């Protein structure tokens, strides 16, 4: 027993040493499957090793905040602009130069470049093509219509994308309208919400629900698996006076206490290059943030439809207000 314990202690010391070996450390809130191929390509091109530390964006941001100057992280990746802006507010990031990221539109990065959007996703409607009862839905605000009672699929209100979407609607249509909208949807779902976006798509495909509110790529992911599924994407709020589709971005930031600033900048340079952009966004059928880089062919072209004019940093600035609103309505 004793020798076994000694062995474990020695082994753990070894692990300690191993973990301290030098490399670029990325705190990644993005799905492993989507970030790994990009990282592999970067290492191949530059020879710089990257150690991925995956987790949820918010808990990694917490970690970064608490670790302060002891953090090993050089970069932080999040799937949600809200988190990135929050990190900026907490002064956790190191702004990068305009030159490095000039390919990325200004609305998709922080005002001081302390974080940079890499790929965007759209909040869209998924409809069952055999079911005509949701045909009238042209705007997300139609989802509050009592005709959809028992026919609407939404995620629970803890979902990052859901919260970000509500922020956009709140900013574009006002607090009161959004409050009424939430109350109407609450009535329509009657306590039954979904814990995953993919389940919304599959519920709509099976005809258990008529319409759902999801990120666009979930629809294509389902169609890839079940090409004959009776579902279609619909871009909401495209009328003349409508607010447009809500967008959110995944992005990256250099941490304030990095000791590898040069390498970290190279990583951002790679991710914002045409090649990096294409790699980063396409694996998940998202929109590359860089103008001129095409998204996956099946996705509605960026620029071909109206997007709600809400700058991404607002998603962080208004997050607590959004949570207050959601809680006040008592969304499940």
């Amino acid at each position: 027993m004793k020798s076994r314990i000694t062995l474990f202690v020695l082994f753990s010391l070894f692990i300690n040493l191993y973990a301290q070996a030098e490399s670029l450390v990325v705190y990644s809130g993005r799905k492993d499957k989507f970030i790994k191929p990009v990282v592999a390509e970067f290492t191949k091109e530059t020879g710089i090793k990257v150690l991925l530390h995956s987790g949820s964006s918010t808990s990694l941001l917490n970690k970064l905040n608490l670790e302060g100057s002891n953090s090993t992280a050089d970069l932080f990746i999040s799937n949600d602009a809200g988190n990135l802006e929050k990190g900026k507010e907490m002064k956790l990031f190191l702004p990068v130069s305009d030159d490095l990221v000039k390919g990325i539109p200004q609305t998709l990065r922080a005002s001081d470049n302390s974080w940079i959007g890499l790929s965007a996703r759209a909040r869209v409607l998924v409809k069952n093509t055999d079911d005509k009862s949701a045909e009238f839905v042209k705007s997300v605000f139609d989802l509050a219509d009592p005709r959809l009672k028992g026919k609407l699929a939404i995620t629970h209100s803890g979902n990052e994308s859901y919260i970000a979407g509500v922020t956009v609607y709140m900013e574009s249509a006002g607090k009161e309208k959004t409050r009424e909208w939430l109350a109407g949807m609450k009535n329509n779902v009657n306590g039954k919400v979904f814990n995953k976006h993919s389940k919304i798509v599959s519920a709509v495909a099976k005809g258990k629900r008529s319409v759902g509110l999801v990120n666009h790529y979930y629809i294509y992911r389902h169609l890839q698996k079940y090409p004959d599924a009776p579902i279609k994407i619909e871009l909401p709020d495209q009328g003349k006076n409508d607010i447009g589709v809500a967008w959110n971005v995944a992005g990256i930031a250099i941490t304030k206490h990095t000791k590898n600033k040069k390498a970290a900048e190279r990583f951002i340079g790679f991710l914002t290059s045409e090649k990096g952009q294409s790699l980063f966004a396409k694996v998940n059928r998202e929109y590359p943030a860089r103008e001129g880089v095409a998204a996956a062919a099946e996705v509605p072209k960026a620029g071909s439809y109206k997007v709600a004019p809400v700058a991404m940093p607002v998603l962080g600035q208004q997050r607590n207000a959004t949570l207050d609103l959601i809680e006040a309505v008592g969304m499940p």
Partner: protein
Amino acid sequence: MGNMTSSIHTSLISLETIKTRAPSLRGFLALLVVLIAAIPLLFVFFSSGQLSLQQWVGLWSNRLPELLWNTLSLSVLVAIGSMVLGVSAAWWITRRDFPGRRIAVWLMVLPLTIPTYVFAHIYTIMLDEDGWLGQLWLALFPATAIPEIFNIFGVTLILVLAGFSYVFLLVRDALSRSQQDIEEAARIHGATPWQVFWRVNLPMLRPAIAAGIALVVLHVLSDFGAVSMLRFQTFTLSIYLQMSSRFDYQAAAGLSLVLVLLSLTFMVLERFFRNRQRYYGSGQSKKITAQKATPLETVIIWFWLGLIATFAFLLPLAWMLSWSWQAWQQNLIDSEFWGYVGNSLTVSALAASLTVIAALPVALYHARERSKMSQGFLYLSSMGFVLPGPVIALGILSFVIATMPAIYGGMTVLALAMMVRFLPLSIQAQESVVQQLTPSIEQAARSLGANWYENLRRVIFPILKGGMATAWILVFIDTLKELPATLLLRPTGFDTLPVRIWIEASEEMLELAAPASLMLVVGTLPVLWFLMREKSDK
């Protein structure tokens, strides 16, 4: 660090004023352990102290009534469910000799290898319309709705299945040690077997049942996995959400403080009921032997145990196997995967050893002193259990960074957090054995001229060995399954199986979540085997 040493001094002074003799080594070590265990509590006090009165009022009126109700009713339901399953299974298995008895023991313990978040994840999928149970339900009761799992009963089901084994283990331990003469005396005086159970066995089992239920309820209070997957608003989930979606550490700490008070109340009550009676058997009375089961009894026993085993282990196992097979076929099980297995085993073994050693002085100190101070030590060392994992991790992280940043980022910090988290588990397990160490045994050794070291080595340790092994195993298993604190404190890039399961499950990669879950089960098997062998040796 200055604060820390000065508080050690203050505590030592108070220790000396209470006890007239100088503090024993045991007491000093116990104090040291307790101080480490109290770090997260200090963090909670410190952070919640920054809340304004207005913020407290806000918390009180908006959130607390619902959270209190949810958390309390969930605890009661899970306690009842675990007691029914745990005591019934332990009773049949120790008192009846039936075919497959050893397998039955295994089946009752194996659910411990499945974490609550895996249970929740698997049951959510199985209860889908195209899931195994969903389809079965629709075949049996067409035109009815499949029962919903996202409510208090769903969460209760998951937590009972994941936790009843603790009650089973402790009650079985007590039953197999219980002595026959009292039961025989009752029977001679004309009591029916049922009366013997209610009036002799049950009261004698009370400490074990209480310890088992305490374990289960403490798991409920601090559970993060099931409630977050099933989105049932308990204190733990609400605290986590305050931290993670609002970065509001102070509100999180405020809620944690209420949770601590709630748990303390519960522990005081539990101790109160447990301490009202203690039983010391005489050394010579004979141990109980199991009666041969009649064929009818065998059928009933196996029906009941089989039912429990199916839902608590076999069904989840079958699910894991079936998805792992898919992963295997897709060549998804690579060297990286085996790395996660190695990481998990390493950190669990390290944490279990550390925790068992740390728990010993506290358990011994309390067994000997039985003073207000030793009782206080016990409560303080239980903090790791009543505080939610994310809060413990936050507390340890803040403390280590403030006092000894050099060790931050390594395995040591992670193991330390696991120790703080699972210390009460280890103390509980060792204490129920320490209670067996009747004062007369040690006095006998002393009177025969054994010094303290000899006493420890030749008397105390052999008696405690079983309890220490049980404690080691319980901590090993819990660390193997631990998620929230590991997520925050693991060294950079150091992924364990739970971390992977959590990542893959949130990405809905069933093919990847399943083999990792399966590995948790497999990784625990040798340890369980050791535990079972220990028991049958006795």
